[in-house]
């Protein structure tokens, strides 16, 4: 611990990035984000991003579509991974659905107005 030479940490590495990455992992990545977007008119779009790996996004989407009676799709984003898109404002419904199925409430973040 006190012997600095034995550290695997590279002291000459870029300083900002590792910290930023670690914060990213700690704070942002393990949240499930539920967002809303406005479309034309009164239409909206709900996106669910950051679904943990143990859930099958495809099956979840199917369940959502059936439960909320809306259409939806699975979008592959380079950065964000798989994102579920649903038609209409389904934010409250999604979060209650997830909470009912034993997803921890503190990991869900609902955005939007």
């Amino acid at each position, binding site marked *: 611990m006190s012997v600095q030479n034995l550290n695997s940490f590279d002291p000459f590495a870029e300083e900002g990035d590792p910290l930023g990455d670690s*914060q990213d992992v700690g704070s942002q990545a393990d949240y499930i*984000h539920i*967002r809303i977007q406005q479309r*034309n008119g009164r239409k909206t779009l709900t996106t669910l991003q950051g679904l943990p790996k143990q859930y099958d996004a495809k099956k979840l989407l199917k369940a959502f579509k059936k439960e909320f009676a809306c259409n939806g799709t699975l979008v592959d984003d380079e*950065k964000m991974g798989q994102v579920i898109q649903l038609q209409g404002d389904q934010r409250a419904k999604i979060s209650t659905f997830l909470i009912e199925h034993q997803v921890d409430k503190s990991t869900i973040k609902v955005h939007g107005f």
Partner: protein
Amino acid sequence: MSEEPLFDPSLKKRKKKQVQFTVDPLGADADPTAPAPDTIEATTADGTAVDLGPATTHERMKLNGETEAPAKPAEEDDIKAMFGDMKKKKKKKEIPMDFVRRVFHPESAYARARPMPPGEAVEDLDFSDLKKKKKSKKKANFDLEAFEKELKSSSGADAGGDGDDDAEPAPAVDLDDDADLGDDPFAQPSAGDVLASVSSGNEAWLSSDRDYTYPELLGRFYESLHLANPSLLSTSGGKRYTIAPPSIHREGTKKSIFANVSDICKKMHRQPEHVIAFLFSELGTNGSVDAAGQLVIKGRFQQKQIENVLRRYIVEYVTCKTCKSPDTLLTKENRIFFMACESCGSRRSVNPIKTGFVAQVGKRSKNKTG
């Protein structure tokens, strides 16, 4: 009113038991208790539920401790919920509940205390239940008149002049102890000590030999804290963080104008860019600042919606997480935002604003990347 439930007992009873008090698994079908819940319900429906609640639950807690009736998790939840919700109220209520039992109905207290000895365990089941009902009924009746008195007296205690307040409960404590256990050498002196040391020394646990619960101690702590330095009370209650509501109006049909962004940012001591970035990422749109310093947001938004988002911004980036004070400073060091509190000196990093996934909306031909 009182006769009704006798005629159509099953339905109403069950309803009450499930909705109101998930409490009595013991005597759900004891007949003489039928009228009692009615009165309880009425009072609770009137809105005195909050007042009634802790008192009765307290009693039940005591009952549980004494009769060793089956532990009821639902009750405990109730208690927790109540204490969690209204810590401040609770401490005042503790006092009334003691009072009511001792001053107005000493017999009931004794009656309750007596069957506790294990010899009469057979009777216990029906009896205790009956008494529960009775007691809560009495509470319901007496609460209003008693409560006011208690409030006065307790407020007097809070203010500091509590001569008679101490004097009254003290003998009651003695009696209760005698009735309850007969032989507890430690209960008496400790009660006396606490009475002497703490100005409002009529805590609920003094009368019985049960352990004090965490919420009670918490309430006691806050009581003594506020007694010792009333300035804390005034700061928490008096000063509120207010911000002018955002003024939103529509430009055309597809854009909203947020006119007083700069004012609000100034009030919050935040860079407008930061606030605007947060707004855009939360609303999932984009926009621009026009020449007059107004923010033009793409999409239709109402004032309420923007207000919600601003509220969230304030919670996340303005109020100090430790002391809840809104005078904080946001500084950026090494690409990370730090929030330093001006009043308590704490410093913490805050989450960077990230837009996240933005679905493609509108024509693809307009979108260069898609």
